[in-house]
Each structure stands twice: as structure tokens, then as C-alpha cells.
């Protein structure tokens, strides 16, 4: 409404943001979990005087540095570019509401990046104690980036009392803040283990056999097979999320709005195209993939580290990426029809402005096409529908309209104009149509050109 629309044919804006975000999440979670991994593992190396672990960490940190600071940073900037173009109203609200939060996040991020560079380039150049301090310092900084971003991300789903009070801390420390923080922390540790499996699977024991070990791990049953030892060690990073994740997951879901849970449970039964079961299906898939990772981790690198191959480690990564993608996508879907729950719809229209716009007309409130002309219907479509739909691609309007003619489309839009969920069940997942009856006619007129049913 306040900004021009960035139209992406085929996949639509939401998928573009989704694709960039999923890659970024997988890398940024590694950046935080990896920080904890370095701190703990280097402490073990220090405590036992195990040069093998030091040597491994040195190699692993190169991979870590490249993955997180290059790919992670590029995709992070990519998210900002894409969300500010796809959802400028929502992004604007987040910036305005949490200006200080973003600034602090940036500060932590900058220090975190600087620390990991120092960490990598000071291997064998500073004392072991100081290097261990760097690892711990990096872990703290990276966890703090999570502490801040988690407040803003969880705010979008459960802004809590903020909707009325507009007090930033009520939005930040919202109902899902704590469960979400812990779940993410455990997931990050698991992802750190996942990446570590990949680098550990590449270990060649002959490169490590001459390295000294002062005090052997009493639990090491691998008799000098360092590759097997590291694989087993990496697998242990999966267990916190599987032991504690369900408890925090239950806490998380107990805090999300009832309508959201209804949308999930409705999907347990039905699977037909057009209903909302995709949310339930996505959550099942996420659970199945998670279960697989657990079993994989247990029977693979934990019980049989010697037989665990590099290919299997990559298969782990595929499953992990799958879980990340589905979980993040589901989290975004849970918010529907809002971008900030109860405050702003996914098309950028504020809930509080709906009545006024209905009265004055959508075009009258639009900065980019206030006057009515032939393209008004298309303009309204781009502003109100195109955040989630495309003309012929993802959530294709042409497909969804089917054989409906203009009058039928108009009837449907009139139903969607209702703001009472008892009358308009689509409100559970789609914003209401906002505007006057004349604007319904304009939009229906345009939509009927998409499926060539204009009479």
C-alpha cells in the first residue's frame, strides 16, 4: 500500500525469500552452534593435551570461516534485500520497532566476525590459553546474536501484549521467546554436529598418528582410531535437541494462538488441494526427518563410527537441510494471514486500518495509484494478493480461479471482504479483501481476464 510492488513471476516473492532464508538459517545456525562446538572441543583438547583435536579444529575452523563469513554473510544480506522488496511494510515495522535491537545485533555480528578471523589466523601464534579464550569469546558473541534476533523473529508470530501496549520489551520478550530460544540453541548444536560429521568423515588417521595425546579420553573405545573418535564425538551433539527439544517444542506450541493450532489440527485429517492441510503435512515431514536424523546419529556415527562414510555424512546434511527448510517454512506459515500476528496482514495492511480503508477505498489510501483507471484491478491484485500468489506460478491464481466467471469471482471476493471469521473461514489463512464494492468489481474484472472468463 505504501510501497511499489516487486513482482517475481513463477516462484513469487515469498519463495525467493524462503530459498535465501533457508540457506542462511542453515549457515547462521552453524555459526552459533559451531561457536559452542569450538569452545567445548578446544577445551577438551586443552584439558587432555590432545594435539589431534587441535589439528582437527584448525582444519575445521577454515571450513567454518569460509562457510559462515562468506556464504552466511552473503545470504544474510540477501535476506535484507529480498524482504525489504517483497514485504516493505512488515520490514519497516520491524526496523522502526527494534531500531536499537538491530543496531545491537549488528554490533554483535561485527565483533563475532572479527573474532572468528582472529581465531583462525592465530592458530599456533598465540598461547593455547589465549586461543581458548577466543573460542569462548566467539561462542558468547554468537549466542548473543541469537538472543537478539530470536526476540524479533518470535515477535512476528506472538507479539503478545505489544499489539495493545506497543512497548518494545513486551514484543521482544514475547510468549514464545524462551522456548524458541532454547529450541534454536539445541538445533544449532545439532547442526554444528552435522557439519562436524562432514569434516570428521574426511579425517585420514595416518595424518594424526604422530600427534601427541597427554591424557586419553577414558571413554574412547576406538583404540587410536581418531576418525572414529571424532565421528562419535560429533554425533553426541545431536542428543540435546532430541532429549530436550520435545519439552521446549511443547512449551512453544502451548504459547501460539489457538487459531494457529486449529489450522494444524484441521490438516491432520484432510489432504485435499485447497484446504490448509499443508501445514500439518509439513510438520509431519519435519518430525519424520528429525526422527531419521536421530536414528541415523545413533546407529551410524555413535554406534558404528568406523563404518560411517563421507556420503552418509552428506546424507545427514540433506536431511538436516530438509528439516531446517520445512521447520522455517512452517514457522512462517503458522503466522498466516499475518506478517506480524494480529497487527499487520501478510499483504502489509494493518488490522487497525481495515475499517477506514473499507470506508474510503483502497485506492484512496494508496500512494502509488490513488486515482482510478483501467489498470486499477491489476494494481489492487498486485498490492493485496501478490504477496502470496502469482498469476501462473506458485499458488497460481489462474489455477485457483478455475472455471469461475466474473460474477462468481465477485461473490467470492465479497465473502473475503467479511472480517468476521464465522462468515469468512478463509480469514484463518488469508487476509480479508480490503476496499469498497467498486474495488471488488475492479479486482474481479481483472481476475476474470487471468482465466479468460471475462464476459
Amino acid at each position: 500500500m505504501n510501497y511499489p510492488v516487486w513482482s517475481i513471476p513463477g516462484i513469487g516473492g515469498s519463495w525467493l525469500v524462503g530459498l535465501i532464508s533457508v540457506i542462511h538459517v542453515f549457515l547462521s545456525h552453524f555459526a552459533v552452534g559451531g561457536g559452542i562446538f569450538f569452545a567445548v572441543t578446544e577445551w577438551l583438547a586443552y584439558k587432555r593435551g590432545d594435539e589431534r583435536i587441535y589439528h582437527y579444529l584448525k582444519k575445521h575452523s577454515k571450513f567454518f570461516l569460509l562457510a559462515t563469513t562468506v556464504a552466511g554473510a552473503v545470504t544474510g544480506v540477501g535476506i535484507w534485500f529480498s524482504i525489504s522488496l517483497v514485504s516493505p511494510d512488515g520490514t519497516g515495522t520491524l526496523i522502526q520497532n527494534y531500531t536499537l535491537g538491530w543496531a545491537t545485533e549488528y554490533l554483535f555480528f561485527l565483533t563475532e566476525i572479527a573474532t572468528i578471523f582472529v581465531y583462525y589466523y592465530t592458530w599456533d601464534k598465540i598461547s593455547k590459553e589465549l586461543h581458548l579464550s577466543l573460542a569462548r569469546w566467539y561462542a558468547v558473541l554468537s549466542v548473543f546474536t541469537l538472543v537478539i534476533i530470536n526476540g524479533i523473529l518470535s515477535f512476528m508470530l506472538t507479539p503478545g501484549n505489544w499489539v495493545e501496549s506497543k512497548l518494545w520489551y513486551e514484543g521482544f520478550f514475547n510468549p514464545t521467546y524462551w522456548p524458541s530460544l532454547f529450541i534454536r540453541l539445541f538445533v544449532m548444536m545439532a547442526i554444528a554436529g552435522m557439519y562436524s560429521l562432514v569434516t570428521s568423515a574426511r579425517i585420514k588417521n595416518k595424518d594424526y598418528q604422530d600427534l601427541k595425546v597427554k591424557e586419553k579420553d577414558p571413554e574412547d573405545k576406538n583404540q587410536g582410531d581418531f576418525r572414529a573418535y571424532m565421528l562419535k564425538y560429533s554425533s553426541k551433539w545431536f542428543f540435546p535437541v532430541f532429549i530436550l527439544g520435545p519439552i521446549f517444542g511443547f512449551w512453544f506450541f502451548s504459547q501460539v494462538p489457538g487459531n494457529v493450532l486449529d489450522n494444524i489440527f484441521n490438516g491432520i485429517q484432510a489432504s485435499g488441494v485447497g484446504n490448509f492441510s499443508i501445514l500439518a503435512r509439513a510438520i509431519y515431514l519435519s518430525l519424520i526427518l528429525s526422527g531419521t536424523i536421530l536414528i541415523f546419529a545413533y546407529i551410524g556415527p555413535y554406534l558404528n563410527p568406523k563404518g560411517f562414510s563421507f556420503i552418509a555424512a552428506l546424507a545427514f546434511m540433506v536431511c538436516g537441510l530438509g528439516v531446517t527448510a520445512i521447520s522455517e517454512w512452517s514457522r512462517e506459515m503458522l503466522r498466516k494471514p499475518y506478517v506480524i500476528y494480529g497487527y499487520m496482514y501478510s499483504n502489509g495492511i494493518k488490522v487497525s486500518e481495515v475499517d477506514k480503508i473499507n470506508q474510503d477505498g483502497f485506492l484512496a489510501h494508496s500512494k502509488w495509484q490513488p486515482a482510478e483507471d483501467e489498470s486499477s484491478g491489476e494494481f489492487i491484485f498486485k498490492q493485496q494478493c501478490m504477496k502470496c500468489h502469482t498469476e501462473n506460478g506458485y499458488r497460481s491464481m489462474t489455477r485457483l480461479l478455475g472455471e469461475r466467471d466474473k460474477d462468481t469471482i465477485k461473490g467470492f471476493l465479497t465473502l473475503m471482504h467479511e472480517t468476521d471469521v464465522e462468515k469468512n473461514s478463509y480469514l484463518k489463512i488469508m487476509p480479508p479483501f480490503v476496499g469498497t464494492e467498486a474495488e471488488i468489481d475492479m479486482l474481479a474484472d481483472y481476475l476474470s481476464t487471468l482465466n479468460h472468463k471475462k464476459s
Partner: protein
Amino acid sequence: MSSVDYGEKFYSWLDERVGISGLIKVAEKKEVPVHKQSMWYYMGGIAMVLLAIQGLTGILLMVYYVPEISSAHSSVLFINTQIDFGWFVRSLHSWAANILIFILFVHMFSAYFMKAYRKPREITWFSGMALLVICFAFGFTGYLLPWDEIAFFATKIGLDIAAKTPFIGATLADMLRGGSEIGQGTISRFFLIHVILLPIALVAVAGIHLLLVQLHGMSEPESFKKAKKKKYEKFVPDFLVKDFMVWLFFFNIVAAVVALFPWGLGPEADPFAPAPAGIKPEWYFLAMFQFLKLLPPHIGPFEGEILGLMFFGVLALILLVAPIVDTGKNKFISKCFDIYGILFTIGFLGFTVWGILD
């Protein structure tokens, strides 16, 4: 007494009655060759897991499915929309069936190109071919059961084509239909074949197939046999752990397809309605269907479709007799079978893709 003692006691109790230590000794002895083509060894295991999924989901579907002409469609709709996780079970059954056929093709051709059918594995090959036919029959009979429009007409066309098989075709088609038209008799017969006869045949043939695989061990490709250094890994636990992980990974692929593209249900079949435009059989019959479409009604004095069916018969027969003809003694014959396999694969893939795009 500690829990370990209980475990040992139970083990020796079981060992005395079942002879489990003997089985473990055999399993420990079993080795799997490690070479570049080792990945194909996993296909049989994946097929076995998919068959297990079929059995389990099939039993669950039978709880609500009604094999009666006026209730079949509504019972599937009920499963899809009213039963908790019903859509999941049904989608899993349908998707796993299709993926199973695909894996069986991969399994069959990997064995074919590795010449795994040669002595002493001839009967393993024959039983494998029989299993493929049984799975085709599962697919054909199961396709009709939801009694939706596409299922009805695809079955009708399939039976009409089958009826043209010389000598036995018409009688066989009538027996399957339970008369001249598809109706209640057909559903009853297909249901019975799908849930009783074929599972019995499957268990029997799969049992023989698995027993023979255990008896002869994994087949070794020629390049491996000639290699100076041969590497083997133990079946238990090394290969078995990897096998299990591959199964799990595969199950996830199936689950992803099921969750993202749940199996739909078309409108209820109306035998008196005209066949919908562009109707096609399942993808694994599509190559044959597409080929038959190309044939003219008559080739000389013969009906085109009859000649087409006979042609398919010959193609399948060549695959079937591979172990008898290509014994490895004659290089020329061996080469011929390689070329035949490549042409068969290209032809099958080409006609299937053409059928999908057409």
C-alpha cells in the same frame, strides 16, 4: 542378579530352541564385495522395505475400505478426509507402490547389466522377474479400487487391451471383469486378488528369492572378479548398518513426496459417462500404451494391437531367458545382451517420457 544375566539367560534359552547362534555364525561369515558398483546392492533392500510399507499401509487401509460399488469411492474419500492420518496412510500406500515399481526396474536392470543372472543365480533371476510381474499385478488391481473416474477408465482400457491377447485374452479379461462390463464383480475380484492372492504369491516368491540371495551371496561383477586386490566388508554389522541407513533415507524421500504431493481422489466413476479426454494408465504401463497407440488398426492380416502385444511378449521373453542363453561362455552373445539391455532401457524410457508429454 544383574540385567546382563537376564539377557544372557534369555539368549541361551532362545538359542537352545531356535539355534540362534548358528544363524549369527552364518551372518558373521557373510561378506559383501566392495567395488564401484556396490551401490546397486542396496536396491533389493530398498524394495523389501517398500514392500513392507505396502503390507502395513494396506492392512490399515483395509480397516476402512469397502469393496462395494456404491461405497468404494466414498470409503476412500472418508479415509482421505475424515480419518486422522488417513490421507497419510493412503498417500504412502500409493506413492510407495509407484516408487517400488521404479526401484524394481532399477534393481532388475542393475542385476542385468552386472550379469548377476548367470550361474548359479538363474533361479534368483527368474524369481525376481516373477516378483516384478506380481508387483505389476498389484498395481493394476489396486488402481481400480478407489473407483474414481480415471481408475475406472484406465482399467477398462487395460482390460480391453489384455482381452486381445491371443487364445486366452478374452476369457481372462471376462474372468477378471466378472462379466462383459466392469462393475461390482470386477471390484470384488480385484480386491480379492489384491489383498489375498497376490500377497500369498509375493511372500512365496520373495521367500525363494531371498533364500537364494543368502545361499549364493552377492554377485560379483566381472571387473571385480578379475581385480588383483579384492576388498570385502562384513555383512553384519558394516553393510547392514549402511543398508539400514539407506532404507531410512529412502523412507524420508517417500515421506517427503507423500507430504508435499498427497495422493488425490478423482470424481466417482460413472460407467455410463464418456471417458475423459487424454486418459492414461500408470506410468509403468505408459511405454506399452504409447507404443500401441502408434500401431495402425491392421498390419497385414493381423490386428495391430495383437501384434503389439506379441512384440512385448517377445521383448520380455528375451529378458527372461538371459541366464539360459548368456552363460558367459560366448563373448558375442554376452555383448548382444548388453546392447539389448541398453536398447530396451532407452526404448522404455523414451516411450514413457513421450507418453507423459503426449
